[in-house]
């Protein structure tokens, strides 16, 4: 598989993962571009025997997103001194109820990340745990907690 084919096939997956991870579609658009730029540079290191292209692209996307979160945290610390940050409404794509979107927005980034990988991208536990750098058990536990939180949030909203 060439890089172009990989990019064409998994662009939506990467974008969706980043959109749910960051809960900001504008940021996700920016990070998706950065992800594929970095993936192109690292493409020679991709080993198909160690995982699928989608898993590898998600790993690259996660690294890019973590860099973004770090820089955002530094920036927000500086800006909080001057003025509190403006709250941006989360958008997670078409087909979700407003209550579910709100509930997703209340989850932590780590919880949204595992929901995106396991449910949105439908990765198995092994692939998702490889992207997250944790054990499969830990991954399953995180997903379970996240779903429980969502369920509770929806119950409260109802």
């Amino acid at each position, binding site marked *: 598989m*060439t*890089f*172009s084919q990989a*990019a*064409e096939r998994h*662009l*939506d997956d*990467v*974008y*969706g993962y980043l*959109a*749910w991870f960051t*809960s900001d579609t504008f940021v996700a*658009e920016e990070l*998706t*571009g950065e992800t*594929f*730029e970095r993936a*192109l540079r690292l*493409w*020679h*290191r*991709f*080993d*198909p025997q160690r995982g699928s292209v989608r898993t590898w692209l998600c790993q690259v996307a996660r690294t890019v997103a*973590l860099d973004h*979160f*770090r820089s955002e*945290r530094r920036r927000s610390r500086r800006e909080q001194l001057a003025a509190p940050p403006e709250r941006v409404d989360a958008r*997670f*794509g*078409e*087909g*979700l*109820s407003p209550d*579910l979107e709100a509930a997703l*927005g*209340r*989850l*932590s*980034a*780590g919880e949204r*990340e595992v*929901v995106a990988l396991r*449910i*949105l991208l*439908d990765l198995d536990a092994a692939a998702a745990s490889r992207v997250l*750098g944790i054990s499969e058990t830990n991954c399953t536990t995180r997903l379970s907690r996240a*779903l*429980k939180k*969502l*369920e509770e949030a*929806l*119950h409260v909203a*109802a």
Partner: protein
Amino acid sequence: MSQRDLVAELRSARIQAPSQVRERVRAIAAEAGAPSHPHRFRRRRSLVLLVPIAAALVGAIVLTRNNGSENDRLAQRGAIATVPYRAEAAPSTGTAVPAPSAKALAPAPSSTRVQRYGATIGLQVASPNAVSNAVKRALAITAALGGHPTSVHASSADKAGAADLVLRIPRRHVQEAVTRLSQLGTITSEQVDVQDLQAGLDATARRIARLQRQLATLRAEPQTPERDRAIASITSLVERLQRGEAATVRSAQLATVRLHVATPPSVQPVHHGHGPLHGIGTAAYWTAVGGAYALAFGIPLLALALLVWLVVRTVRRRRVDALLSRP
């Protein structure tokens, strides 16, 4: 809403990258151009392993072959020069001549001074018969030059033979004797010793003259028993000194030539007990020694590095978890 419904709704989310993102990613992918080769890295990594292994193998083979050719060279050298030239230490008053050239080796004895002349010649001949012939010819040369043998030892066994002769040859003919004896075979060693005796003889002559003057003085005086005993003692000493002087001069008239004639010693092939894989064995041995040292020093370092890595990873994970714990 049940968890199954929740998961179903989450899965129903339709997320598509906006067109501008798609265009940007396509532009990035267009830079990739030619199809990539994901296996290139693995090939390079395998080269990193293969190259040192191949180098070690080649080195072991080269070492092994060098050992073999060294053995051959040693064996050849043994066949060509079986008895190395011996340059023995000369006496303090003697002369050691290292070069095996017969004419140049034997300096002419002095005609004015008394000298003790000695020569040692080592010869190599082809067979025990040749040893026998050389002995006969050496004795004939000695006799022809007015000398005589003082000892002759000859032995032979199987295809080897050797003879040792001690010859006494008039000093005036010694140079010719050395030249002719050297032609009986291939010279393997040669040594000439010349010891000057003239100074000692002169000292003895002076002492004798002094004693004789003393004798003359004693004889001129009136004889007493005590003086008679002194005259007898000095006379005896003078006679002893004169006999010694005469014996020295007589012995110096003849030079001593020691001749060693031998066949080449049988060449034993140089064998170190090393097989053709000795080089590889040596390389493996030193590799094992290096490995042991590497383990001894490497394991603590490795454990430390592992500990540092674990600490760094834990800290990094906690930071990431803290970073992702916010909505």
